[in-house]
């Protein structure tokens, strides 16, 4: 079977073949080393320096972190990121899970309806933001539909919720795709067996679907947290971080590239990295299978 690795005598031609095979990984690995691994290590290094790109880095120890700890703007950015992420992704995940159940069929209508939810996923964030500036306009679609006259994007009471609404609209379809893939991986026999046992709709969900979906739910939840922390475009395009919407990425962007404090921005990145790492571990543990 395993022809490639002939046991015992590997002649020199065979050895040469494996060496050539190794070389094929070089372009990808080189790009990776230079543009992912090196910056990854360097972000830790830079986080203890005062650095503005044009001047040589100056070692400042933990000063960057100490400054962040007392910087109200940073605290707000973290809080606003958490609010945005939770506000967007909790409803998006819940909605996607419900929709996945309703749309997990092979009817033509089901396929068409799925498409309606998928389209916002395919459009780019900035294009969607430009469209939503009009939707959220005081005389735009949303207010007209709700019979309101809110100035969504220019008030601290509503700006975040306008962005959250747009986020749910944009992201639900993404998780719908993942949940549908998960549902379809569940063998139909499990349902047949549970139906024979007289299980109702709810207990079929509770005892078959939900446990079988757990790996997908874990992935969705990890991705939701990461995507929440990646938030940037709508906040930049629609409010430029004003009215209580300056998320962490925008804070990093302004710190590094408007105020030329690259070291401090790196310190934020390090904190975000650690936070995401811990959150991912916690989530994987929460969703870990107890059995086996």
């Amino acid at each position, binding site marked *: 079977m395993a*022809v*490639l*690795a002939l046991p015992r005598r590997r002649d020199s031609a065979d050895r040469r073949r494996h*060496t*050539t095979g190794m*070389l*094929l*990984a070089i*372009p990808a*690995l080189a*790009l*990776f080393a230079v*543009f*992912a*691994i090196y910056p*990854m290590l*360097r*972000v830790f290094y*830079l986080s203890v320096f005062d650095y503005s790109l044009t001047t040589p880095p100056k070692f400042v120890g933990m000063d960057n972190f100490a400054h962040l700890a007392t910087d109200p703007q940073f605290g707000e950015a973290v809080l606003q990121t958490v609010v945005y992420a939770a506000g967007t992704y909790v409803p998006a995940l819940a909605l996607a899970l419900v929709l996945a159940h*309703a749309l997990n*069929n*092979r*009817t033509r209508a089901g396929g068409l*309806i799925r*498409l309606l*939810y998928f*389209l916002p*996923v*395919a*459009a*780019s964030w*900035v*294009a969607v933001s*430009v469209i939503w*500036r*009009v*939707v959220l306009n005081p*005389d735009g679609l949303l207010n007209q539909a709700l019979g309101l006259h809110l100035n969504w994007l220019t008030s601290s009471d509503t700006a975040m919720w306008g962005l959250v609404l747009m986020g749910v609209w944009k992201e639900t379809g993404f998780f719908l*795709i*993942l949940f549908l*893939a998960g549902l*379809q991986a*569940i063998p*139909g026999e499990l349902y047949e067996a549970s139906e024979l046992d007289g299980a109702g709709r709810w207990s079929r969900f509770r005892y078959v679907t939900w446990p079988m979906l757990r*790996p*997908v739910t874990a*992935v969705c939840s*990890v991705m939701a947290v990461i995507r929440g922390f*990646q938030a940037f*475009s709508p906040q*930049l395009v629609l409010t430029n971080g004003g009215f209580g919407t300056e998320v962490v*990425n925008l804070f*990093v*962007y302004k710190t*590094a*590239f408007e105020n030329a404090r690259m070291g401090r*921005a790196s310190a934020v990145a390090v904190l*975000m*990295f650690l936070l*995401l790492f811990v959150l991912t571990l916690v989530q994987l543990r929460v969703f870990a299978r107890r059995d086996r």
Partner: protein
Amino acid sequence: MTKPATRPRPPAEAVRVATPVRRRRKRHPGRVVALVLTGLGGLAFISVLVYAVLTALKPAAEVLAVPMRWVPSTFEWSNLALPFTETPFARYFLNSTVVGVSVTVLNVLTCTAAGYSFSKFRYRGRDALFVIVLATLMIPVEIIYVPLYSLVYSLGWVDSFAGLIIPAGTSAFGIFLMRQAIDGVPDELLEAARLDGAGVVRTLVSIVVPVVRGPMAALALFVFMLNWDSHLWPLLVASDDDHRTLPVGLAAMQANNLGSAGVPMMLVAALLAALPTVLLFVTLQRRFVEGVTASAGLR
């Protein structure tokens, strides 16, 4: 030395959202209700895009009229030309296309080669390298942007296509996806090619690639769409007039056209910017779904 590993080979099977597992279900009243409800929700979702399309074609006086009208009194088809005549929109579009296609081609090449290497050859350190690649899968790129920028800056690639394209030339999930796919290519096929005198590269091109065309297409589509959406990196590394991609250009256009007179033009621009990926998605839905599930490590 290295032992002949015989690890189980999963079939390279596509995840299909479009065609769920058949279950013998009769027409349930509950199912009809579910379809009606989800259909109404879907209409609410899509109404935003319908509104955007119709508003883009309204005369300027009607765009934010109260009470709102869905259908313009007259369709202003000339609005469609506004982004092209008033702004360098065509340039942004061209830049996005050049960068998107280059990044996609690079990713397909590097990831397929690396996936083949990681899947079918044995060499020291192979598995460790693969694990390192996988470990970066869950790290959002935003975290490394500061050092990445200072690197690209010292390479002299700021305000150049090199800065937009080369750092994005490979991807962890692409390598992972292609390794999984190539794991499913039977060794017998490769051995037969070898006995026929085909070298490593030739085997890749004429035997492996035809078998894994599907996953390669999924990777291409996914990378292209991801890149088309990319905003923060292009904003940092190439936001001058000649290199702006669509997201950066659109944002700049909008900053200059915040009044309601600019609304039709901005909507036309936004819809045109969204069109390529939406069309790709509609025609290649299944490939996109494969890309999404692969990027989530679900297969």
